[in-house]
């Protein structure tokens, strides 16, 4: 860990100004990812701007009927908030599928969005990695890529975004509220994370100095038909190999609206509008699920050790759509898959 200065910001403006003034300063919230990366010498900020005292800890009713979640709401508070449990159970489920209770207590909503990939090479400064040190190469492509992406990869990086919560937020069409040196803006969730392309060092469209202030959940109600299905190398406390968030609106035996997002398969939570539109207007039957799965995975490409993810994702999508349609969402306490 390098030496760094430390500032505790009292207001959003102060936080933004502190970061804007210093190109290698970083915000720290729960610290559950950033402090690890500091210890590994992967992140070497010159200053940490502690934002944990900012007044961003509330979950409020939003004007249009949705919820506004402050960026510093701990993951566990968010998961167990009554309004979230009732109106956005998909989000509760996805959060509880991740990490451990201790980590969820410490981790913040904003930090969860900005956690970095778990690619082994990225965490090991003894190896090359385009994301950590641009231009050094991507050893994962020809190396240990069991946990890597099958969709949206580039020749420069095949890392995945590791978050569970974000997969649900993507499915729910959340918006990310940010404030930066040039004022506030709102980013649709689908545009928040980016694909690696030839700039794998950049994970998101957030600009330096911008702080996430809140996540907005729109008013749509998917509480009847939803699920978060996570498949991993042990039954809890492991990152997803493949995860699927599904939110359906079914009326008179017909799927009226469908959201399908995948985790563990790409550099961002993966949504495919074409696949979702294939589901709309159809009865919730396995053939429809199968077709949607095929569509999502049509461009999927495996590497030496992760080719299985394509078939696993196909089956997981079908299973998850079935769980959602039957209103038997996956529970995160009982590890039996429904």
């Amino acid at each position, binding site marked *: *860990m*390098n*030496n760094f200065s430390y500032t505790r910001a009292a207001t959003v403006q102060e936080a933004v100004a502190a970061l804007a003034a210093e190109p290698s300063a970083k915000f720290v919230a729960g610290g559950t990812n950033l402090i690890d990366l500091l*210890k*590994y*010498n992967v992140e070497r900020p010159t200053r940490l701007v502690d934002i944990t005292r900012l007044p961003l800890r509330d979950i409020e009713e939003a004007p249009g009927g949705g919820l506004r979640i402050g960026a510093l709401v701990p993951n566990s508070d968010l998961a167990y908030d009554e309004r979230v449990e009732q109106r956005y159970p998909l989000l509760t489920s996805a959060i509880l599928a991740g990490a451990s209770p201790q980590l969820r207590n410490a981790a913040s909503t904003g930090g969860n969005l900005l956690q970095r990939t*778990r690619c*082994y*090479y990225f*965490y*090991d*400064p*003894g*190896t090359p990695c385009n994301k950590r040190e641009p231009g050094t190469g991507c*050893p994962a492509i*020809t*190396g*240990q890529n*069991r*946990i890597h992406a099958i969709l949206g990869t580039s020749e420069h990086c095949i890392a995945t975004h590791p978050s569970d919560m974000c997969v649900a937020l993507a499915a729910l069409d959340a918006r990310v509220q940010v404030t930066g040196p040039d004022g506030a803006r709102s980013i649709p969730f689908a545009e928040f994370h980016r694909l690696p392309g030839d700039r794998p060092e950049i994970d998101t469209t957030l600009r330096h100095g911008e702080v996430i202030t809140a996540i907005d959940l729109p008013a749509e109600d998917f509480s009847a038909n939803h699920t978060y299905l996570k*498949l991993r*190398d*042990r*039954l*809890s*406390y*492991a*990152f997803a*190999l493949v995860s699927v968030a599904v939110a359906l609106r079914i009326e008179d035996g017909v799927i009226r609206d469908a959201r399908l997002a995948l985790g563990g398969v790409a550099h961002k939570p993966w949504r495919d509008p074409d696949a979702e539109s294939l589901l709309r207007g159809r009865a919730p039957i396995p053939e429809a699920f199968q077709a949607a799965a095929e569509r999502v995975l049509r461009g999927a490409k495996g590497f030496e050790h992760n080719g*299985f993810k394509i*078939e*696993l994702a196909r*089956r*997981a999508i079908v*299973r998850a759509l079935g769980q959602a349609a039957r209103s038997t969402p996956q529970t995160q306490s009982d*590890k*039996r*898959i*429904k």
Partner: protein
Amino acid sequence: MLRDPDLHVGAPRSRIDGVAKVTGEARYAAEHRAPDLAHGIVVSGAIARGRITSIDSSAALAVPGVIQVFTHENRRSTAWLDYNYQDEVAPPGSPFRPLYDAEIHFSGQPVALVVAEDYDAAAYAASLVRITYEAAEHATSLEAQAYKSYVPPKKRSGIKPPSPPRGDAPGAFTASPVMIEADYTHAVEHHNPMEPHASTVIWEGDGKLTVHDKTQGPQNSHSYVVAVFGLKADDVQVKNAYVGGAFGLGLRPHYQLFLAVMAALELKRSVRVVLTRDQMFTLSYRPHSLQTVKLGADRNGKLNAVIHAAVSGTSRFEDYQEDIVNWSGFLYQCDNAAFSYELAKLDTYTPSDMRAPGAATGMFAVEIAMDELAAETGTDPVELRLRNYADKDENQDKPFTSKELRACYAQAAERFGWSRRNPEPRATTEGRELVGWGMASGIWEAFMQKASARARLAADGTLEVATATSDIGTGTYTILAQIGADALGLRMEQVSVKIGDSSLPTSPIEGGSWTAASNGSAVMVACTAVREELFRKARGLDGSPLANVPPERVVFRGGRIAVADDPSRSVAISEVMRAAGLEVIEREETAQQDPATTKRYASYTHSAIFAEVKVDEDLGVVRVTRVVVAVAAGKIINPKTARSQILGGVVMGIGMALHEETMADHNLGRFMNHNLAEYHVPANADIHDIEVIFVEEHDDKISPIGVKGLGEIGIVGTAAAVANAIFHATGKRVRSLPITLDKLL
């Protein structure tokens, strides 16, 4: 038989070190303090093979608080001969010498030690050391190197080489009506004890050192330090009062010990070096191996031929060896058998013993093969094993000191409900899940090693027992107290146990599951000597109630010596001591197995393990919902700590079956998932019911106290039982561990 409620041996007793551990009073190697303590951080190398061409420490040295950066260029000179680096359990070869020269032998090799006034300065400075390398071609893939395998020219002491062939195995195999032949493999595993390796070296002045080391053998670390640095034996004391798990990783001294001692001697001050979790993956590991098992049998599953061959990885500088291929010969009767075991050189650090070394590896293959034979011949898997039950050690042609494996099969099967098993694979479902039941046998060699102990009875009737072994979490403190308490009829609280110190009476390293048998016997013998002396004194007192009573007629109970059939005639221990004018009675004794017994008999601990799995076949998700294991391990001194040992072993076996895997990038020659987020051990959600049964087994030969040992047996066979249950559930035979979900899709 009713137990005597005053006796401690055989009764479940809580750990006597438990309170110290949960209150934090127990100090581990990295937790000892000294007023002038300096902190060392290891800089790990990046390449797998080659040479260091330059080291630039200037930026590191410029960090405030940095005292020194040690490299091969400026380290003090140490011993020249390999001999001096060879510890008690070193395999044949040339042990790795930290910071010795510019040569790089494995990825993550320590290439510098940064020492600073505080940990953070050292850690930061370590990140600033600039090293350039000239890489040479490396090889880390066993699959790619297996074609160059060789029979190790020098045998590792204490490890059985493959037994000589019996009969004509290849001929009998081809002539057999039923032939099973398959390849088996398992992943590299790292031990990953909770406590990382660490050494705190306290500079006591005048060149004297007290070393708190993470080790399973304080005397092993002691002789290593003395030999390598040319010190006087009396100037060095190694302590390891508490050890936070080790699983074999603490058998050999590791490089943090060398580096901490080197820095302390050079700087003439106290130094602590703690490895990071990542660096724990640069130490030893359970080697990957490629095995082939061939079983030839008649149509009833009676074995005609067993052929077991294995190739394992080792380092380029040492020939680590373990016994992978002999186990079938100890378990099953078969007239024709052939075994082979070869090594292949890899550019990694030397592998080492990890819980049930060789047996966990070999038995997973043998016991899956036996399940395949059972399926092929339509024989019940338990019945198949009974049909082939060995009544003597087939490899060595020796009788067993005891073998209650039949009772293990019977009792575990009964508890598990095995008789209700539908033999057809894929026949049982529960909701979406396929249900499978599988079983396997477990075996581990029972050893007793020569060990010494001291017993010291004080005037107030308290007893101290001491021996230089270690408690790596197994419960050694507690069982030694139980043995001491019973020998003199004391309460547990009246007995204190001193272990984990090189200056105590000579002990073998803690390992091989031999500590209870060896050190337990030594404590028993020493306490018996004290007891005899005490009795002599008691009988000699004026007006002694024990006058003219022969020793066989007295009992030591409740702090008193009494005539067994006339408890009214008794005297308190403290009274004897006072009347005889004694401050203490102290005896040091050595216990050892009778060499004639060792020569004539073979001795093993056995188990039968039954597992239930539920498999969501579509998604490859496996849950191990139930395990019943019956263990025959001679006398069980403490059923509570014993059960914990078996539970831990079974959990580790489930990990071996489903989770544990260190993945190497062979292009870089480096293990990649070097942290506990990505190296998966079972989480709580992966573990359900585990029931442990201890089968009665009387053994008057293995050790004076009838104990065989328990540390390893829990893991042996577990992976096979899980794999066999998965086969029963799904009809899929997976022969490579861990069985991750992709292998079931």
